[in-house]
């Protein structure tokens, strides 16, 4: 659980640094996100006069929900403390509640940007959550369980083979991950243009420790999705339950390597594409939903696909 918390800013810093390199800039050092979080933590929080209690507690709730969700995903070992208690559906629900609270907080102060951000976020969520659920069902049908440790060990076993439905689910999951993490082409995490923001517009009013929580949750979420994709579709190196320290070490090394590869690919993708119009996002996520649906149908039609 602590590991994900510590690694999350590093992944964000790595993606930013690779993007800067691709643009022939030096960019900030890779540990800059840690410094930013510390700086924000030391600052006073400024609250709007008309902010309600919801506005103040929202960052902690969002952070808690995201952290728990991230802790439920096997990163380098399958035997997790909480494996028995929660599965993929719980993770989706956690993220859904975090988003719901964030959207509420965005509207709480009543500025127009918060409202714009919340309505856009709700629109994106409306399309991405069904797609996510479809992907979860596909995986569950194939592996016979929604519990991630079981899914991961099933994926490692030879019973999987090459399946079309898994391929479709992978593509759909990547699309959902891009939308959920407010990356280009759906949202631009680095923009300063108030009118184009989605995620940033909702958190415009936050400062100090509240902003720390929100920024950290955003970083955790990115890590969560990368871990999820890695755990389900590239589970090599995962240490099985009760393995020795060597296996754990291999697991950690493999995990960090997977994160680095994912960060590199994400930065490369973001640099090579422009942001899409807000109204193109439903098309984009609709495609993800269709892919998820197709994957599940294929699974029903034929056991081997």
């Amino acid at each position, binding site marked *: 659980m602590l590991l994900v918390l510590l690694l999350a800013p590093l992944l964000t810093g790595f993606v930013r640094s690779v993007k800067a390199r*691709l643009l*022939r800039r030096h960019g900030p050092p890779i540990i800059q996100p840690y410094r930013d979080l510390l700086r924000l933590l030391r600052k006073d929080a400024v609250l709007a006069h008309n902010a309600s209690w919801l506005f103040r507690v929202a960052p902690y709730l969002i952070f808690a929900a995201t952290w728990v969700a991230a802790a439920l995903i096997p990163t380098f070992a399958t035997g997790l403390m909480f494996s028995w208690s929660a599965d993929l559906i719980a993770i989706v629900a956690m993220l859904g509640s975090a988003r719901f609270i964030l959207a509420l907080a965005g509207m709480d102060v009543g500025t*127009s940007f918060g409202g714009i951000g919340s309505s856009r976020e709700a629109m994106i969520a409306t399309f991405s959550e069904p797609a996510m659920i479809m992907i979860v069902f596909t995986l569950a049908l194939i592996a016979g369980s929604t519990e991630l440790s079981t899914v991961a060990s099933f994926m490692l076993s030879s019973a999987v083979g090459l399946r079309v439905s898994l391929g479709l689910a992978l593509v759909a999951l990547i699309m959902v991950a891009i939308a959920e993490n407010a990356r280009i082409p759906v949202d631009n995490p680095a923009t300063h*243009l108030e009118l*184009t923001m989605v995620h940033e517009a909702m958190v415009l009013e936050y400062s100090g420790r509240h902003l720390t929580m929100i920024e950290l949750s955003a970083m955790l979420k990115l890590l969560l999705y990368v871990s999820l994709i890695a755990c389900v579709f590239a589970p090599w190196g995962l240490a099985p339950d009760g393995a020795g320290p060597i296996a754990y070490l291999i697991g950690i090394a493999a995990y960090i390597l997977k994160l680095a590869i994912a960060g590199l690919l994400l930065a490369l993708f973001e640099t090579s594409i422009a942001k899409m119009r*807000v109204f193109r996002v439903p098309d984009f996520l609709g495609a993800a939903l269709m892919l998820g649906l197709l994957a599940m149908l294929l699974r029903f039609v034929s056991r081997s696909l």
Partner: protein
Amino acid sequence: MTALIDMMGIGREAPNHRPWPRAIVGLEVWRAAAAHLAAGHYSLLALWGESDAVHMALLEEATAQIGILTLECPDRHFPSVGQVHSPALRLERTVCDLFGHEPDGIPDNRPWLDHGHWGVRHPLGAAVASPADALPYAFLPAEGEGLHQIAVGPVHAGIIEPGHFRFTANGETVVRLEERLGFAHKGIDRLLEGADLARAANLAGRISGDSTVAYGFAFARAVEAAVGIEPPLRAVWLRALMAELERLANHLGDIGAICNDASFALMQAQCAILRELVLRTADSCFGHRLMRDRILPGGVAMDLVDDSIPDLRALLAELRRRFPGLVALYDNTASLQDRTVGTGVLQPALARQYACGGFVGRASGRSFDARRRPGYPPYDDLRFDVPIFTKGDVNARVWVRIREVEQSIGLVEQILDRLPAGSVRARFDPSASKSREGAALVEGFRGDILTWVRLGAEGTVQRCHLRDPSWFQWPLLESAIEGNIVADFPLCNKSFNCSYSGHDL
């Protein structure tokens, strides 16, 4: 229709006004001119005030004839041109704010530059203390189901100039945009009154920082016209060299910035490198990256730094080598084209009505370029094309810039090939027995900058007006965004790239 030259003939010609005539006319001719503007026979170049008169500069596009009409208004009233020809509206509101001349019949009598924070009203006319209980600015209403307002600025999230935008939107679709400008008002008009030529040239170069060469150029030409001197040939060519370098730097910066607003940072990074190359070369050639204060009445402040011509040639070679690749990148990135094509369309009819210059006008089919017509040296001696596009969308405005970059590269090359030798500054005595007036129209990177200056007998500026091209581009932005989505506004705004500082003066 009446030819402009005939209309000018009806009035009393003002003495010592060069190079175009200025006629002092009565109400009849003033109203007739407004009717001609409304009918599209003439284009409005500028409308500005003085303590006891209003002036209006007109252009007849067919003949490239320019004339200035003056209406004396001792009673502080003049018939509004804006009531029949809307491009004049904001200009008249400004005249009213600064001088207190009331435009009779104007449909919109809200203040424009005056936000009630000056402490006085009509600072350039009969100044009176401003009332303490000023009315709040009433934005234009929009009615309908489910409309909401979004207020943006004047303080923005990025480091840009101040301006307020009030959107009325239905969900994501913009129903109406209204701008409120004037936050960058610096009182240049008052500062110029009574300034000697050196200080006035200094001030003119500080009106809009990115067009400092063009403003210096325009001011110098107007003064030279008033005094009746010609700068040395080498100075004229060096001025064009600076103007083209400024155009290159700004267009390159703009192309990158537009792409960046579509979150395509790669293009901006590449264009910023090229822009930086241009600025560094300008620094090594003229000792200042933006070449500020290098153009003075009578010539230029300094000759090219020794041995800097090879630097310029190297810059051209580098631009020629790298720019086509960037154009291809822009053209071949489908996700970028998806954002720019068809976004923020400006109708050609509106561009014509507002006599809108620069890349905004040329992307909507208006071919006006002050370098070509009425033309001024040394451009009448140089080969270049004026690129025209007719679609009027963001994509067209990017393409005008791309083509103009190519033309400017060609122009700099011609200038280097044919740069004459000689002195770079003519000394002259600006004092004379009587006052003289001069006007000039110079093409900056945004469009045509009009300058009108009256010199007093002792050689100082009595009154000077500099009209930024943005006056006729800002209102069109409101029209171009209509029916687009809110999130596309930054893209449209950047493709117009109007000046706040030059407009707010």
